[in-house]
């Protein structure tokens, strides 16, 4: 009896927490369908009293929204693609090749894990600036095209792939690159997908990085563009901004719902973002 009561209580508490956590996101969605009059009416309500899709058509006209979306896709997608290639190559060397100084190289790479990008933003900006890459995709993408977390994650995974598979390929005369591409990578799909998800998410969502490396409106990402839109004009069309927010958040929420097991297990096993 008390066990049942406790279970119901636990469930009720968790449902209340989940509702509270989801409330702001639901409010963003409902507000994106509200009219200006409705948003400013007293008392404020969660659900739209008059339904409109004008905010969604309006946002595409303003802000060069399509351009922001394209920039975000290119930036987050570019970083993810390059980081997967470079991280997995480095991880292969560290997991599978015997060479002098391997331990040292691994230590050096792991040490960079401890450096927050915010602490090196000034010199990295100076470097990108000297290379003439501010306001360009390469300028935003290149500094993040490899990262210690990805190398470490993949190395751990590669170590768990049986060496017999390599040896078989090696007897068949395969070179290291072929073993890497056709033996190790196909067997590491779960780890590669996990890494791709995290890298993509972190870059899609980042604010400080695109703020620093782009000054041109046309090069902004969604997060930076929306943040600047609200700050700059003071009074803004709230419904419009919420429609933009929905569009910027929807891809990641959908992606997460599709592969949430991978996401959550990735965090549970590595404990890193």
């Amino acid at each position, binding site marked *: 009896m008390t066990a049942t009561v406790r279970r119901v209580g*636990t469930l009720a508490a968790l449902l209340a927490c989940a509702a509270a*956590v989801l409330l702001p996101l639901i409010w963003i969605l409902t507000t994106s369908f509200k009219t200006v009059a409705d948003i400013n009416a007293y008392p404020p309500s969660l659900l739209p009293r008059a339904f409109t899709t004008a905010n969604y058509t309006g946002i595409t006209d303003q802000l060069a929204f399509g351009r922001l979306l394209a920039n975000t896709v290119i930036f987050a997608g570019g970083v993810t693609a390059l980081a997967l290639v470079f991280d997995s190559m480095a991880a292969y060397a560290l997991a599978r090749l015997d060479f002098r100084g391997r331990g040292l190289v691994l230590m050096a790479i792991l040490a960079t*894990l401890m450096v927050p990008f915010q602490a090196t933003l000034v010199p990295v900006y100076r470097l990108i600036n000297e290379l003439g890459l501010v306001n360009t995709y390469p300028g935003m993408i290149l500094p993040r095209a490899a990262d210690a977390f990805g190398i470490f994650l993949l190395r751990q995974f590669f170590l768990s792939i049986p060496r017999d598979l390599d040896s078989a390929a090696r007897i068949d005369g395969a070179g290291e690159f072929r073993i890497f591409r056709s033996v190790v990578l196909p067997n590491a799909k779960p780890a590669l997908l996990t890494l791709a998800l995290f890298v993509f998410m972190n870059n899609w*969502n980042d604010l*400080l990085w695109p703020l620093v490396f782009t000054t041109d409106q046309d090069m902004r990402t969604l997060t930076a563009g*929306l943040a600047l839109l609200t700050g700059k004009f003071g009074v803004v069309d709230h419904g419009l901004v919420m429609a933009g927010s929905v569009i910027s*958040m929807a891809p990641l929420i959908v992606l997460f719902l599709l592969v949430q097991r991978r996401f959550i297990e990735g965090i549970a096993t590595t404990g890193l973002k």
Partner: protein
Amino acid sequence: MRTSSAIAPVGKRYRAPAPLGGRRRPVGARRGRVATAFLLPAAVILLAFVGWPIVSVIGLSFTDASGLGQSSWVGLANYREIFGDDDIRISVVNTVGYTVMFTPVVVLLALGLALLMNSPRLPLRSALRTALFIPVVVSLGVVAIAWSYLLDPNIGLLDHWFNRVGLDLGNVLENPTWAMPAVAAVAVWKNVGFYMVIFLAGLQGIPRHLYEAARVDGAARWQSFRHITLPLLSNTTAFVLIIAGIAALQAFDQIYVMTAGGPYRKTTTIVMQIYESGFTDLRLGFASALSLLLLAATLILSGLQLVFFTRREKELG
């Protein structure tokens, strides 16, 4: 391990005949070249964009480098300014305040949620986990816009609900006392699901039979929590505390959007100040000194993390 070394008696390899010894070198060199080729792209990127910048930021912090023109050596002037100028020092004080607010709250909430989520035969478990985790995958900079609207006294739903229960805070984000707790609360909302998942993994690692044995011995729920769950979860707790603390030191996104560091600089954190000094005022030298301060604080926490990391590695084998 290679089969040959397992069969051959120890030491035999070193007295190998000359031709074999002669061949070993090129093989090793070739191996080195292959490894270099695999490592090169990542190594170049990490050296150029992490390694060199660390050296550079140290050097810059002793100069008056600006966006353009020459820079000259100014010794410790930047550091004196950080700790001497009230306007700047407040960013350090605020970052400590934010960290002290955010870290224990988010860790306790995450632990509480994980304990509830871990109760046996809980209905809707995966749906609840999904719901609690969703804020983790959305952009803090974007949801922060919605949070400032929700707290707005003119149109805000949350402000309205607060008023209804007799809580009249006025414009929270312009209130010097409440602005910082508000931006910290938004970060708690955003990250609690993330830390909860780590706690859940830790809880699932605790062998069930321990609880059964405790129940047979007549232990109350609180006693098994106190004597089984907490001690066996201490590694996870320490780990979560450290990474949450590191995350807190880097607070920027929601502050930039919600308060821009105000009111009266009450929410200006170190990273906000780095952004302002470095990229608005173009005082790169000064921003570098602030950056080193951030790096030092992070390294202290990361050093602790490394200890736990290796401990975890050892446990996992």
